[in-house]
């Protein structure tokens, strides 16, 4: 397993270069990182220093920065073409954990509620930068804070899609968190559409 590059041990907030460096170094589909460093606050019942898995997928262009309008979510599939693979790309207009771009405000998240898989595709509150309420049981997620539950029942934050720029292209490169429905995040090997 690759070790964690030292550039990742600092604050990660909007620190896109560090992640780019990390991904360039590993070049793997999955990698063990100190998740507390990459995405502080996204460690599940474990010590923040516990190594955890970050799933990286094939680099998938999901939109263009020049075409992205503030507070208008763009839907895309990631890791497969199942209904549960739908994700949401949004320019929040406000600095966000894991956000990229000049204002660190471009983020992407899964669009499946991590309570019971309710469909929150396009359900986005522009005033508060919140995904939801999920129509099933009203869970809401704060997209400026790594998809943290604002109120509700989900036992995991909304999985966040790691983004990078390739020129004007916004490229999805990996997932932090477990996508609803999966026991293992889809990778090049086990994504439903690749089987």
């Amino acid at each position, binding site marked *: 397993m690759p070790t964690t590059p030292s550039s990742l041990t600092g604050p990660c907030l909007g620190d896109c270069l560090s992640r780019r460096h990390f991904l360039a170094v590993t070049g793997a589909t999955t990698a063990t990182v100190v998740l507390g460093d990459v995405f502080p606050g996204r460690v*599940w019942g474990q010590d923040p220093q516990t*190594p955890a*898995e970050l799933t990286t997928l094939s680099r998938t262009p999901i939109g263009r920065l020049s075409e992205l309008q503030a507070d208008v979510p763009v839907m895309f599939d990631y890791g497969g073409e199942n209904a549960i693979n739908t994700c949401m790309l949004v320019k929040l207009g406000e600095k966000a954990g894991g956000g990229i771009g000049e204002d660190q405000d471009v983020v992407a998240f899964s669009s499946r509620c*991590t309570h019971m898989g309710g469909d929150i595709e396009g359900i986005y509150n522009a005033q508060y930068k919140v995904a939801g309420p999920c129509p099933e*049981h*009203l869970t809401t997620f704060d997209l400026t804070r790594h998809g943290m539950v604002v109120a509700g029942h989900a036992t995991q934050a909304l999985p966040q899609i790691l983004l990078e720029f390739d020129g004007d292209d916004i490229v999805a490169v990996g997932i932090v968190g477990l996508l609803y429905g999966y026991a293992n995040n889809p990778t090049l090997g086990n994504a439903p559409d690749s089987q």
Partner: protein
Amino acid sequence: MPDTPPSGSSVPLPPKNAKLVTTACDYCIVGCGYKVWVWPEGQSGGPKAEDNALGVDFPVGELSGQWISPNEHGHCLVDGEAHHLVVLPDPDATVVNPGGNHSIRGGCLAQKPFTPDGPTKDRLQHPLMRVGGELVPVTWEQAIDVMAQVSRHVLDRHGRSAWGMKTFSYQYFENTYAISKLAFESIETPAYAPHDKPGPGNDTAGIDDAGIITFSASYDDWSQADVLFFSGTDPYETKTVAWTEWMMRPGKKHIYVLPRRTTGVAWAEENGGLFLQIIPGTDTILHLALARLIIENGWHDADFIAGNVANRWEIDSGFGRGTRNTPWQWRTTWGKFGASFDEYRDWLLSNRDAELSHAEKVTGIPAAKIEAAAQMIAKPVDGEHPKASFALEKGNYWSNNYLNTASYATLALICGAGNRPGRVVSRMGGHQRGWYGAASYPRIFSPEKQVGRRKKEINLDLWVESGNLRFAWVIGTTWAQSMAASQELMETFRRSTRGSEHQIEQPDVDHATDVLKQRVDAGGMVVVHQDIYPRGPMGTEFADLVLPAATWGEEDFTRCNGERRLRLYSKFCDPPGEAKPDWWIIAQFAQRMGFRDYDWKDSNDVFEQAARFGRQGMLNYHPLVVYAKQMGITGHELLRRLGTTGIQTPVRWRTELTESDAYQSYAGRYDDPHTPGAIVGTKRLHDAQRDFGEPEGPTVHRKWLTAFNSQTGKGILHKTPWSEFSDFYERITPRQAATPEESELWVTMGRINEIWQSNFDGKRNAYITDRWPHQFVEIHPDDAAPRGIESGDLVRIENDDVLVQTGGFVGVAGGSQSYTGLEQAGLIRISRGGYEAVAIVTTAIRPGVLWSNALDTANPPNSVVHRVPDPITNRYRFKLGKGRIRKIGESEYKTDLRQMTFRPRDLT
């Protein structure tokens, strides 16, 4: 298959041969059903249906109930060996949480079990004794020996009232049966209080006095209502699945009476309901105004009242010549409260407090909204009264206990609610119903009484404060933070334990016993704290002995949920170290004391013995135990077969079941082909429309099965004169000063969805502590701006006017126990209290009111709450604290995007 390392991006699946048991959630009253799979580390199931214990292909689809989130997987020890664990809301459940619905709290249960190197590694594992100021391990024998010798000394020298217990009332029948057997049967001490109140007795006396058993309804009954009137609770936050599954349904109108706009309120307003944003403590005035509007307009359910509500003769029947010395007897028959409908109507219509304009002013709720609410709950539509149900919880009964509950029950009864599907009245509940009393509280020995021969249960905090308690055994509760004027109480404990010159200096039984005897004889106190974690300050600072308890998943336990549904909470893992279930610890102590009938060999033994002492109650499961014996199995084993459905108490045995299939499958049943008859549960109490047949075999039919729980079987209305409360309310109303900084605000509190209770498990789960890393306080922008407070600021809330009652155990003259009477007698002391919090500036909270998490043990808002209980019922007004708030800095969460969020919770 090879083991998959658990992480945030994968969970190991249970292999086909994983052990499966059923249980129910350890936390809130709803008690969702769960399945638990346990299997050795080093193995894992596969994503194909044939390769995993769930028998499904992964990935699974939406709402399948079969997804295992990372928090639903954990680790534990089984026979000392490391095991994987999946705790999944039962996807096959048909009751409580159909399809595997769950809350965030229950969904994190897999993180609860003990592992030596995981987040719960600080579980108590060995009995500890404080030697030279430090807690050091001792053997069970040594610990029990010291406790027994000191207890014997206290009982002989200082009397039974000097020996007390403060314990959970809910943590499983087997344990509470043992606790009550010891306290009330063997010791016969009146010095006992449950975890959430200063003494035993009714939680909601006004509901009980009306003849309504507080958990008489089933969740299905709520689902059949057209209108739901919620007082002092948003079940979304705290009874989550009861709300999301049974109440959040299209076409239902919800009315919420709260000072704070919550998620449930937002849903209600979106769906034609109402939000009555009340000034804390004024519910009685609202109830009176609603009742008056309803009666003035003739919207009351006259037919129901004629057949189901007691007249004057019925109220007095059977009691005219009695002593009337039990609380409900004297309250009902006193003449001040109990009333026929005519008496009530006359009183109400001549009562200025019930006038709409007055109510608008006092409650802060616009008159138009009060009128709209009255129409919604009572105005007939096409000649039919709306099916209205009434649910209350602590915002109601922890602000003005007797008057709020009595006026609420009266309002419900005149609307025709109480005993029919869709027309029920109940608490929504906090903890599950886990109390199984072996004997009654010995009220006759209580040091307290009302004026006349009216014995009253003890106020244990007052008893401690006045130096009368010498031995305190605390089980599974954070006593000081949970009670009013918390900081004051902590100081009293500190003074009488660590402040004593008599401290154990050697780990020696004889020495420890001698020292502790000297301490109690010198007026000090010995504290034993029994819990699952080290809990401050009682366990970590004050206790002389700390005892490790086994808990959920570590022993077979039983209890009921908020619709009286009895289930087995199966054992599936090892308790940590030498930790033992509470019943076992009680038994060791009792046997060492020479008390009889504590020789239980296992928890089923306790369960079966307890059954004989609950036959008269609404939690009666005795017929189940009898049926199990006829089948040749244990009571626990029969309950195990009933899985997550369980059976609703009271359990009934019948030669032939006449209940419909739907009734049987909801209430639970068991029909063994080789055993005569069958057992069936009871869906609803006060069920006048049901023919239960003759009671057969071990079945007990109490009159409340088909009638209200009063002397005549009818509901009893109560007048609720505001003057019983107004002197105290005026005294504690926040004082306005020249500057905002000097002006006081109401400080009220409640529960937040993501945190269970004192967060004892959640604070060991980073997922929960990331969301709520610190105590918080919601403040309205109008209050925040002049004080320079922004979301994320660290603030301090202080009250230099905390009222503490210092005496008044015995009422002699009329009015002596009112607030005015206590003050005139010099029995009110003014103290101080405060706590720190992270500010959340939000329009969700009413201006003039602050709102915090009710039980943050590091920053308890009870510190600013007055320790002056309702003189009628001895219940604190927890929700009516007050204080000044000021900024003391900025918290890291203001800018750190990793923890806490300040987004509103009331979005639609």
